[in-house]
């Protein structure tokens, strides 16, 4: 039954990838912005929830809420600082600025939370469900359900409401959108705050699975890149499918080939696709 267990593991891993990648997908695909501080934001989300649970004694749902709010505020500050670069669509500078801000977040978190690895206590993460020889935890179920709900809600919001078309209009041409009376700055702010809050939610849900470190940064979320590029940049359904597919790939590769090289293998997959279909992946 090893294969069935690996399928479950794959879905568990994949829903986590998709959950963490959601904010990036929206940011990159819908608003065409980049944020290389994503990994550090993930780290911060995890540590804020850890702090809320272990130091403030808050229950898990409130800790998640706190992480979402704190990260939302940080997102607001970051985006306000970068607004001029965003409005001039200076993507090269934006990439480097977010990388620098991520480094600041990493240093600041190490000062506040200390350099030791911590574990997010989650009662759900220890609640195992056994079906015959197969097993998973209630936390895994929670991640999967929340991920599916979030993707559904975001898809409806961006594709079926007026706000969704407003965001896409701004991404297409911020100056032109402003001529039509849209406040482009507000839209960018909203999308960026959403990205930060979404990654906080993802971190609070996914991080109980493994120890957290203030230095984990990008290596922890490198799969996010692969998910976003594989899924076709900006495609919400594509990101969900790519996340789950990548989860299955990782689970099987880890179980049957070499667990230490799963990231390398996922990356090789990405490279192969970039060579075969560069235009189809790099453009919408």
């Amino acid at each position, binding site marked *: 039954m090893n294969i069935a267990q690996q399928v479950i593991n794959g879905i568990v891993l994949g829903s986590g990838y998709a959950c963490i990648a959601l904010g990036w997908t929206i940011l990159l695909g819908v608003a065409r912005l*980049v944020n290389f501080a994503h990994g550090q934001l993930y780290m911060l989300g995890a540590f804020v929830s850890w702090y809320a649970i272990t130091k403030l004694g808050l229950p898990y749902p409130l800790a998640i809420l706190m992480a979402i709010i704190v990260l939302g505020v940080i997102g607001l500050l970051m985006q306000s600082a970068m607004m001029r670069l965003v409005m001039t669509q200076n993507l090269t500078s934006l990439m480097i600025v977010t990388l620098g801000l991520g480094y600041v977040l*990493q*240093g600041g978190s190490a000062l506040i939370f200390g350099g030791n690895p911590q574990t997010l206590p989650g009662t759900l993460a220890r609640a195992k469900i056994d079906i015959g020889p197969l097993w998973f935890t209630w936390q895994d179920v929670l991640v999967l359900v929340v991920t599916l709900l979030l993707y559904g809600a975001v898809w409806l919001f961006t594709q079926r409401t007026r706000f969704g078309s407003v965001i896409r209009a701004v991404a297409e041409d911020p100056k032109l959108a402003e001529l039509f009376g849209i406040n482009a700055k507000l839209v960018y702010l909203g999308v960026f705050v959403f990205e930060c809050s979404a990654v906080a939610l993802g971190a609070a849900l996914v991080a109980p699975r493994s120890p957290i470190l203030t230095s984990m940064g990008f290596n922890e979320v490198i799969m996010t890149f692969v998910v976003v590029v594989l899924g076709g940049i900006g495609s919400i359904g594509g990101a969900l499918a790519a996340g789950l597919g990548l989860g299955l790939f990782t689970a099987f590769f880890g179980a049957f080939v070499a667990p230490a090289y799963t990231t390398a293998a996922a990356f090789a997959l990405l490279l192969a696709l*970039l060579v075969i279909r560069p235009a189809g992946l790099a453009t919408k």
Partner: protein
Amino acid sequence: MTAIESPQPASIPLLRLAAVAAFIVMGFLLPRLLGGTSVAYSTLTTIAIFAVMCYGADIVLSYLGEVSLGHTVFWAIGGYAAANLSVKYGLNGWATAAATIALCLAAATFLGAVTLRTREFVFSLVTYAAAVVAYEIAFNWDAVGGSDGVVGIPPLKLPLLLTNFSGAMQEDLWPIAFALLLLTLAFIARFRRSRLGTTALMVQMNPALAASLGVDPRRIRLAVFVISAPITGLAGWLYAYQRAYVGPDMFESYFLVMMLTAIVLVGRRILLGPLIGTALLIAQQNLLSLGGDWNKIVLGSVLALVLIFWPAGLVGLYRRITKKT
């Protein structure tokens, strides 16, 4: 100061030559002028090595307008080549340097060819992912060092016709680091005036003009990316000898943030810009250190603030101030 407007005033080449020679002599004697202590030597050696590291990324960022987040790979290739070949096979510095150059060219050609048709942020993403994967390989592959890295790298030996340079002490490494820095500067200066350098700038600044002149931007991009790799690689090569240890920490984002900050701090497309930027940043970290975490905050903030408020760097700031008053 841009590469395009560089036809030299040919009337005073001798004076210019003398000034450059004076600067070189001054630079070489700088550690002795600063007291000749081993701290002065090691700090200046580090500055020289890190500046060379930055120049590799500088070519790509300043002349191609692309952000390579994968230059730590070349940096680590240099370090690992020096470490493994000198510890396991007892090869001298020339052989390890040649291996560094060859391996960097190969890695850059592969990475450049694969990302040839990707646009700006996908290029950065893929180069970054390449660095993460290279880290994973270096961390897990025990044959090249694994998670422990390679310890006990012997002193650098560069046998020449008459003498035998050896870098046993920090003081001995300085001439080599300084020579590497000079070579790099000469190469960059040559590159700025070369056909490739000016064409790369044209592709970045005016793609339409470049296309109408029949330039293939992909070929230019690949060429610039490939020649940038061995520069950063040779810096990593010397860094391995300076530290006598090489490990997966060569992939740390510190080096990446350091490269980018040193480039943008003074201003892009300025020959001495990365060198001055590196010197300022290393001086802060070595002499005015606030502790590891605060240094991270300083480095990251400098990078973000410069790009947000003075995109043209300190030189741009200086020009703006002098114009206003």
